[in-house]
């Protein structure tokens, strides 16, 4: 250092009262007080508020969901989370496929008595952060007016190999009660049933850091479901069960029902109470008549289902673009035959200043369940029938875009947009039972916020 007469440096050590006063005022500043206490972000209480909506094409479902979640530290090594979710589903779901005069199936949506389901989910999770382990226990309950589910899950992760590798074991169990909220004012509804089902899920997962920029995850899940796995609201059309083969008589049942729906006759019958009077009359049973005259048969599925789901996930960070690409491939084997392939790409791009943008695409292809068809000529030898579109052979393609922006350190907003398109002929590897009548699309948009305190 060059010192001249006009330039001097001075060093003093003792802290003056003035400095103490300034220090005191400075340490009261929120941006400074945090570090002064050596606080860490995980010590904050986080509150998340999420709202999502989606609407399917063609007069089908609309879902609105709201979630509130609170996460906070408990003691030194534990973290607790509680979330409450309410979703409301409204619209109409396909009930049965009727044949037209040419033998082609058509969907029957009983819109006159549209569905409005409210589901409330409460979940609590306790997580323990060990030096090289992470354990959690989750308890939850989900309630609808025709369904309750109580569930719990346990998971334990161990890090080893200088934390470059990890192994996770998980187990989950759920007990469900299923019934139909019998509404006698709805034309094709069955009288009340009350059934139970349970599900056990075992999971093992291995994670490996391959190098500074690449990680790999392999996971295998086994799911065992048993009990009443049918859908009490779904029906399937079996030609042999009908009193006549209406095709031979050139009678267009689907046309008749479509006319009854479109003209408001069914709505009138349901709303005026005529359906209710008929359903409650001891002399007439609409479900019995519809089964034995029209061939409208109850959805009936095996009482056991086993699924093996394997996942391969590769994540790579690209330094040049500040981005990370996640690639997932999932194969699900299914004792019902509805096995599926899922391929998903998600690209997280950090744009700086708290902005992140994540475009993604997902492709799904499913084989039809062995007891699925749009309609049946006769009940198969195994005795199971379902025309639930979720068990059909189909493919689905979705495009997603997620944008998030952090405002300061305590507030983050997420926008999520998805376009989903399901088509029966998107199925890969040979078309199985399915039909364009179950094709649909939806767009979903959701907004959520995370606030830290």
């Amino acid at each position, binding site marked *: *250092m060059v010192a001249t007469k006009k*330039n001097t440096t001075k060093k003093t050590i003792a802290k003056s009262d003035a400095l103490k006063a300034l220090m005191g005022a400075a340490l009261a500043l929120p941006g400074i007080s945090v570090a002064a206490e050596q606080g860490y972000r995980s010590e904050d209480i986080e509150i998340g508020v999420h709202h999502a909506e989606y609407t399917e094409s063609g007069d089908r479902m609309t879902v609105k969901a709201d979630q509130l979640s609170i996460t906070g530290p408990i003691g030194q090594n534990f973290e607790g989370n509680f979330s409450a979710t309410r979703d409301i589903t409204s619209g109409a779901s396909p009930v049965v496929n009727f044949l037209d005069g040419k033998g082609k199936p058509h969907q029957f949506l009983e819109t006159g008595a549209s569905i409005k389901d409210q589901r409330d989910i409460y979940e609590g999770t306790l997580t323990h952060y060990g030096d090289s382990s992470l354990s959690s226990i989750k308890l939850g309950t989900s309630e609808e007016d025709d369904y309750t589910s109580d569930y719990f899950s346990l998971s334990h992760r161990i890090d080893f190999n200088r934390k470059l590798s990890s192994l996770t074991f998980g187990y989950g169990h759920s007990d469900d009660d299923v019934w139909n909220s019998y509404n006698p004012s709805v034309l094709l509804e069955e009288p009340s049933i009350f059934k139970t089902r349970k599900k056990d899920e075992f999971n093992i997962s291995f994670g490996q850091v391959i190098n500074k920029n690449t990680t790999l995850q392999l996971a295998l899940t086994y799911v065992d479901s048993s009990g009443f796995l049918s859908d009490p609201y779904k029906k399937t059309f079996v030609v042999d069960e009908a009193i006549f083969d209406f095709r031979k008589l050139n009678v267009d049942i689907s046309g008749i029902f479509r006319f009854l729906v479109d003209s408001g006759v069914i709505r009138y019958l349901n709303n005026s109470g005529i359906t209710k009077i008929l359903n409650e009359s001891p002399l007439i049973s609409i479900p019995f008549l519809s089964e034995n005259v029209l061939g409208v048969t109850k959805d009936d599925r095996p009482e056991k289902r086993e699924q093996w789901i394997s996942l391969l996930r590769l994540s790579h960070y690209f330094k040049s673009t500040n981005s990370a690409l996640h690639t997932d491939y999932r194969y699900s084997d299914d004792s019902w035959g509805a096995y599926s392939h899922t391929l998903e790409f998600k690209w997280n791009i950090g744009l700086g200043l708290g902005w992140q943008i994540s475009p993604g695409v997902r492709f799904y292809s499913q084989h039809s369940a062995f007891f699925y068809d749009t309609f049946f000529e006769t009940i198969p030898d195994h005795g199971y029938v379902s025309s639930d579109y979720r068990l059909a052979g189909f493919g689905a393609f979705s495009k997603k875009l997620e944008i998030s922006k952090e405002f300061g350190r305590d507030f983050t907003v997420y926008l999520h947009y998805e376009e989903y398109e399901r088509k029966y002929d998107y199925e890969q590897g040979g078309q199985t039972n399915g039909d364009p009548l179950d094709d649909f699309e939806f767009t979903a948009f959701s907004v959520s916020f995370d606030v830290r305190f």
Partner: protein
Amino acid sequence: MCASKTQHNPSHFDFKAMGSPCTITVYAYDALDAINVIQKATAEVHRLENKFSRYIKNNTLYHVNQAAKKGGYIDVDDEFISLLNYADTCYQQSNGLFDITAGALRHVWNFSQPSNSASNNLPTDTDINDALQRIGWQHVKIDNNRVHFLIPNMALDFGGIVKEYAADSAANICGSLGVQHGLINLGGDIKAIGPHPNDNPWQINIRDARNPGQHKGGIKLYNEGLATSGDYERFFQIDGQRYSHILSPKTGWPVKGLTSVTVKAPQCVIAGSACTIAMLMEHDGIDWLNGLGVECLWQD
């Protein structure tokens, strides 16, 4: 996942905020972690800029200054109040020289003129006296989260506080995200998060005001703050007398005495206000700094 070693080479991020070139330097676990940390730190700097800048319309400071203009009152958040309390401490410790209500003088002295032509645009005594009427921290009262302006046409200016506070806060965020070695530099307002990974301090060279391109000396930082007051490139030459662009709220005139003061203090915000107070104290500034008990480097 938490690796035990930090990067060998630090990650740098240059950006512009608060009217200055800024740089964040961190030694993080890996590049992804560095990006995460830098994003959060820059977000904090921008948050404070958006909230307290005089140049942004409709921000918090704008609304407060609308109330100050009317001579009314306004409710503000805890952070705003704690900054006002800090400014109050500076006012008390400097015997009223450090006054965040002195902004009115900026409109009287035109700083956008080239340094040597200011003498052509000297404000009149009437202008200065008029501005001085609207200055005075004693005319501001704080009652819980409410700020009252007892006279109209006042204005608050957090110059000398907010950029420095932003450096401290950004450094804190890096520290809370696990960074142990790094440096925040917001246009010369500096806060070290911790020394280099080999425990060597950050060596900050101070420019020589009279010999551009040369250094006047250096200050070592481990986890302290550093700020400099007196901008060599911005000064007045009035009748051959060199004036700083720092204005005295007592006389309404630019201060004389020191060309620049660099102060090292536990927090950047303290360094910033201490060097500003020293400049305002003119020839008594260095004695005051010595009495304060901070390391400093000055040029007159």
